[in-house]
């Protein structure tokens, strides 16, 4: 039969386990979606903080990607820098420093995030704690003079305090308006100030089904409720939840850091609990802790609880009436 020519020779048909079709989404696609979602915040940051901000972001990304390549090469692993995960880490780290930070600080942060936090545990998928946030915590402890206190104010060459520091009373200054907070026309680290840009990116990721709405909804919702109940000077239920949502790193943390796949729960219920936990710790630190801001520590602390949360929130298996131990 002539048409048998179309069948490969014996042994050349591909034989593999079902399923034989796969969805189009890949790890690379997901990671680059996150990069795309961060672009509005990149643009706004350059607008308010100038090209110094772009320079810092480029240093962050380049040093993260180069570090990843060097470590993978040294360990004899496949080099996977094109998957976009190091780009995300480098960019998020840059988002967490002020535009005035020295460039070498960002390099140290990126190297620490990739080489120590990510690659020593096995690379993408194996780190138990968020690399960019851990690097930020390390930098904050080692060089607080660059990361706390005075921040560059937008469209200006002078520096000042962040809105949360003013709100908390640990720094002097005038509280900016809601609209300035929403647009990002306030002092802060270079990627966190514009709630609008982060919201646009975050909603894009939810729409593309890259992230689960549960984590940011639970995180932001918890902060809103707790700051409304406990955040006011005039007693219970006198707080200003909107101010707490718009100011500081909540938007960045809730949409882009707490949703980091590797370091957050895989179960839907677990993501709700994870988000609520992040919200509670953030409010504890903001209202009663030593720092004006608590988003990054809240996420890092909750990262450590992920294995326990997953155990508690394993879904009930079909046909099994009792919850698993």
């Amino acid at each position, binding site marked *: 039969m002539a048409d048998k020519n179309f069948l490969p020779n014996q042994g050349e048909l591909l034989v593999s386990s079902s399923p034989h*079709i796969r969805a189009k989404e890949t790890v690379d696609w997901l990671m680059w979606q996150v990069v795309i979602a961060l672009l509005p915040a990149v643009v706004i940051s350059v607008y308010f903080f100038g090209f110094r901000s772009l320079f810092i972001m480029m240093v962050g990304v380049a040093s993260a990607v180069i570090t990843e390549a060097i470590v993978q090469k040294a360990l004899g692993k496949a080099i996977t820098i094109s998957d976009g995960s190091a780009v995300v880490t480098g960019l998020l780290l840059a988002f967490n420093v002020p535009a005035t930070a020295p460039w070498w600080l960002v390099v140290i942060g990126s190297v620490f995030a990739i080489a120590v936090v990510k690659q020593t545990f096995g690379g993408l*998928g194996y780190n138990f704690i968020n690399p960019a946030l851990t690097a930020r915590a390390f930098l904050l402890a080692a060089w607080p003079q660059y990361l706390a206190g005075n921040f560059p104010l937008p469209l200006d060459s002078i520096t000042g305090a962040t809105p949360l520091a003013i709100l908390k009373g640990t720094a002097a200054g005038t509280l900016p308006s809601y609209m300035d907070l929403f647009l990002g026309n306030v002092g802060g680290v270079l990627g966190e100030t514009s709630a609008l840009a982060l919201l646009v990116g975050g909603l894009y990721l939810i729409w593309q089904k890259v992230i689960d709405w549960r984590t940011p909804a639970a995180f932001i919702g918890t902060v809103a409720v707790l700051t409304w109940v406990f955040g006011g000077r005039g007693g219970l239920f006198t707080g200003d939840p909107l101010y707490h949502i718009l100011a500081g790193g909540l938007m960045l943390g809730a949409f882009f850091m707490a949703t980091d796949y*590797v370091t957050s729960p895989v179960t839907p219920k677990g993501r709700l609990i994870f988000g609520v936990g992040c919200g509670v710790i953030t409010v504890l630190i903001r209202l009663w802790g030593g720092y004006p801001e608590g988003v990054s520590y809240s996420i890092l602390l909750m990262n450590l609880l992920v294995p326990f949360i997953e155990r508690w929130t394993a*879904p009930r298996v079909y046909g099994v009436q009792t919850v698993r131990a």
Partner: protein
Amino acid sequence: MALKTFLGGVHPAPSKGRTGDRPIVTAPLPQKVVIPLAQGGAPCEPVVKVGDMVQAGQKIGDSQAFVSAPVHASISGKVTAIESVLCPTGRTSLAVVIEGDGSDTWIDSQGRSLDDLSPADIKSIVREAGLVGMGGAMFPTHVKISPPPGKSFDAVIINGAECEPYLTCDQRLMMEEADTIILGLKAWLKVTGAPKGYIGIEDNKKEAIAAIKAAAANEDNIEVVPLLTKYPQGSEKQLIFAILGREVPSGGLPVDAGALVQNIGTTYALAQAIITGKPLVERVVTVTGTPLKNPQNVKVRIGTLFSDLLSYCKLEGKVGKLINGGPMMGIAQTSAEVPVMKGTSGILLLSPEEARVLPERPCIRCGRCVEACPIRLIPTLLDQYCRHEMWEQAEQGHVADCIECGSCAYVCPSKRHLVASLRLGKAEVLARRRRNK
């Protein structure tokens, strides 16, 4: 009203248009058939010898074992060999090879009327006709309709979901043979004594729903249930939940939820066996895929070689993968020289590009597999346990409940071989349970 469905699942592209819009055609009578003696349950012993002349419909294999169904000659001719052959299930089986005489002479048979049959008569017809589950599993049907002592069926569900992409043989049967399928359902109701029958059909098969609804219009105890189009809607456990709102207990059988689920093809075959008195020797197979010029649903004799059907459907492109069944749960073949069996619902060809397997990456814990799993397992966790041979943890994680539907691997962005891994773990856990008994 929202369509009925189950929790979890995925939405692969249906890819059904090329065959679903065209009527079933009958394949030319094959010159040779290869009929495996193991087609559901224990393998049969041959009851013919090499050199015997046989007629179509003649029994050629049977077994004393309860969990086994007889097999029959699908064409008339001469038995030229009884030998071990490779089957599209991936196993080898003893098979009866018949060279046809071209006359298609049939055994004498007598049709009956369902009204004249007792439940025992129906059960006898089911066994003697060699009925097995024609969705793929090929479990002997007379066993399936015999509930263990103390248990009974209160509902019969005909599985018209056909959730596997590409496959349309059930859809076409429902559109073209709705009356016969309703007769088959009435026979299931009679043999089980169940008061209520359902036909669940995915909502993307509007014409099939309309045809079955028209055929069932005068039946008070038969309900047509449109279902949300979602894979694996046609999985037995998911179908029972969607229609009855009940779950089959872990480790149990559908009868533990009071339900008997039957495939469209099997139901049609039962009705045919009643109407004509002939056993199951032919079935409808969806022969499809991009390398074929003329993909279609073909009514073929059991034992026809895949290669004959590929010629008939005009193979004209390079083949990367040849699959028995659909793309989600089908079995990849090493050769086209394998016979159509009672459970062969589809023959799917993928081009070399479509068949390309992307490299596996580490799990990034995105959780897509957890949301997709219709059994609500945590596939990524079980995958780690199975790869590290942590069988106790895998068992506690209910790996044995995995239905191997492939939803987890389908959605995995890291392209991990989750089904292969969990299937291994499932086999190991079940083997350990047997050893510890």
